[in-house]
């Protein structure tokens, strides 16, 4: 614990504990949306005969909506485990570059960094982005907690309690995440011309690849746009 008395820390930037809480608070609207998606995942898994334990366990240990929906879709349409695993890995490969971006702000040795990297989920990573490549570690970890709780709780409700939500699309919930990423993209673009250029190239690359590449690949390939940073800065 810090030896600095509370008085002396006042007036400085918010303390670490405050930033964990601030992250958790900022994530609450997304936790709500995640909870509803969790319910629909639970209903889907239940309808595929997964059983409550497998559905809830998958949400607890995989903890990724995109990977789990992909696994359910592949297995549900008669695909084998290998196809399901490949689909999930392709979809979640974006956590590779996201982890690289946030990596310099995590703490400790390799094992601890590997553990802290597990807190990277889309909304938390994006919420913790401070522009210009900077990230707020405590804010990100704080933001992940309510979303994980909502995801697992939603799955349990869906698989045990049945379908009381209905189609999340009917509520327009599918528009929440792209709109939210747009908010953060606009923040990033304030970072200057090169950020804008990179974003444009990435968007075009991703759109061009959607009809040809497996789901998940366009987002990874679009990261190549960041190589623009190799240009000698003048």
């Amino acid at each position: 614990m810090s030896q600095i008395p509370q008085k002396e820390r006042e007036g400085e930037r918010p303390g670490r504990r405050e930033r964990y809480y601030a992250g958790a608070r900022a994530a609450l609207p997304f936790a709500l949306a995640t909870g509803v998606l969790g319910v629909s995942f639970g209903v889907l898994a239940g309808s595929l005969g997964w059983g409550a334990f497998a559905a809830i366990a998958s949400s607890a240990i995989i903890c990724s909506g995109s990977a789990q929906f992909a696994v359910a879709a592949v297995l549900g349409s008669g695909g084998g485990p290998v196809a399901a695993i490949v689909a999930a890995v392709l979809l979640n490969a974006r956590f590779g570059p996201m982890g690289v971006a946030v990596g310099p702000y995590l703490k400790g040795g390799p094992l601890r960094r590997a553990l802290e990297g597990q807190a990277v989920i889309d909304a938390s990573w994006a919420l913790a982005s401070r522009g210009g490549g900077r990230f707020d570690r405590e804010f990100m970890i704080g933001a992940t907690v309510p979303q994980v709780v909502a995801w697992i709780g939603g799955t349990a409700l869906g698989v045990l309690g049945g379908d009381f939500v209905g189609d999340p699309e009917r509520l327009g919930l599918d528009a929440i995440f792209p709109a939210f990423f747009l908010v953060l993209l606009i923040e990033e673009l304030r970072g200057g011309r090169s950020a804008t250029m990179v974003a444009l190239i990435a968007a075009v690359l991703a759109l061009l690849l959607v009809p040809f590449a497996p789901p998940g690949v366009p987002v990874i390939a679009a990261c190549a746009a960041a190589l623009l940073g190799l240009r000698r800065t003048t």
Partner: protein
Amino acid sequence: MTMLWLTILAVALANAAIKASGPVLVGGRELPPRAGSVISLLAPALLAALVVTETFGDDGTLILDEKAIGVGVAAVALLLRAPVLVAVFLAALTAALVRALG
């Protein structure tokens, strides 16, 4: 059933390994300035790709549907300096309304 459990475990392990790879690779070392500038541009690249694929991508095809209208309304709201949560809420509300009317 065993197949389902094996799949779940394999995906969980693969997911954890992917998430661990970035932080372990760039752990604690000083990066050369150019690598640093590439990494700092990953955020706008990833965000732009996520926006367009989540808005227009649907199982390997490009579509223009109610969701895109919702995201468009959010974009206009943001340009008019609406608060973030209002813009995100408007996106969902618009998509839901257009679907209900359509």
